[in-house]
């Protein structure tokens, strides 16, 4: 159909070229999400602390990251990462792009996650905070027992949506030649002389994963929404 031929695909090619990239894409997404949420929460709490020494650097970091294209951030980290750093990690010298990509995505996504966190924390009404205070809770207790559980519940759908966007963005490691899902498929496509089919297949794979995940998020959203 349309001069396309998908018949070159078989299990051998998938396991030889595609699987490795697919695993890296998933790995990158999961590590960047977890790392980004942790670093993002720290940044959000810094910005909400009201202490200038913490607020200013956090704001600067978040706004800085958010005003630069991801591709440029990927290139920056790859350029500035010292060679000695990769030698510290076993097998690091052969996987420079991949390691650099993981660190970049944690640092970059933290800025976006921190904005989601901040909005979530601010969405909790003052009355809740005041009630905690009235019960004699410390700031930490108030955060841990009153604010964050509610904020997190409000945020889960947005955090998951951001993770889906993150998964799409992992394809941009193309800029530094890291071996991800897209690279795996295009490599196979080039070797077997079927580049167009490989791109089309990449689109289908990304679509199925992202569409499936966003469907699940939508279902989840209806389920966990706090009824007010």
């Amino acid at each position: 159909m349309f001069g396309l031929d998908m018949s070159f695909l078989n299990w051998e090619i998938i396991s030889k070229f595609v699987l490795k990239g697919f695993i890296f894409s998933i790995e990158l997404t999961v590590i960047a999400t977890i790392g980004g949420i942790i670093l993002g929460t720290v940044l959000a709490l810094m910005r909400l602390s009201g202490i200038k020494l913490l607020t200013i650097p956090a704001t600067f970091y978040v706004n800085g990251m958010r005003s630069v294209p991801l591709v440029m951030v990927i290139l920056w980290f790859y350029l500035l990462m010292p060679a000695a750093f990769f030698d510290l990690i076993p097998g690091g010298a052969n996987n420079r792009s991949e390691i650099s990509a993981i660190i970049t995505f944690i640092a970059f996504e933290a800025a976006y996650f921190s904005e989601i966190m901040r909005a979530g924390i601010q969405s909790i009404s003052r009355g809740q905070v005041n009630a905690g205070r009235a019960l004699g809770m410390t700031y930490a207790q108030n955060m841990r027992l009153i604010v964050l559980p509610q904020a997190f519940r409000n945020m889960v759908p947005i955090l998951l949506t951001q993770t889906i966007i993150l998964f799409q963005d992992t394809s941009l490691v193309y800029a530094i030649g890291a071996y991800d899902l897209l690279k795996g498929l295009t490599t196979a496509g080039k070797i077997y002389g079927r580049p167009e089919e490989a791109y089309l297949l990449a689109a289908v794979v990304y679509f199925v994963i992202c569409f499936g995940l966003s469907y699940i998020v939508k279902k989840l959203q209806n389920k966990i929404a706090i009824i007010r």
Partner: protein
Amino acid sequence: MTWDWQVFLNDDGSGRTYLQWMMDAWGWTLAVAGCSWVVAILTGGLMGTLRTLPNSPWLVRLASVWVELFRNIPLLVQIFLWYFVVPKIFPVMQQVPSFVLVVFALGFFTSARIAEQVRAGVQALPRGQRYAGMAMGFTTAQTYRYVILPMAFRIIIPPLTSESMNLLKNSSVAFAVSIAELTMFAMQAQEETSRGVEVYLAVTVLYAVSAFAVNRVMTFVEKKVQIPGFVVAGATGGGH
């Protein structure tokens, strides 16, 4: 390390300095982003409107498919599809310059997000607005043209602003098909001059300046077309 900003005055081998090359590249970035923005607003506005039509389930479905399709495939893959796959399937497209292909790729990608915002904007309006249009004897088209869309487009300006800034940043992905824009310049100049930090820094500043300019322009427009007495809830969203 020491700074070497003189590098921008060096000849790049074709008779122009790196500075001139960078300014040309900035122009390409703005051109890609500007043209894509027009495509994105037109198709996004259309698809978002179609999704809210009251009695046309097939148009609603069509627009939903559009949104899901362009939202769930990474931009880089979409650019490759336009650049490699579309010309293969439709040989007519082989004549189309890659600039145009990238504009459509980026424009349609962004249109899916804008469509969602337009839909949210229309649905955020009180139902009475639509009924008022019907009571005046307007057709559906007239109701949208004179009542709903002028309101909806104004209340979605804040999210449109961040989406426009995203579009500008996303134009960097055009490097993948060798459009001579800023990111492409950054990668090539870095390789040729080995002054990566200076080159990247200059490019990063240009991106930040452009994004800030978009923000100012949109804020200006927002103030100009503000509906008196109509409070707009600020919408925050993820994405980039």
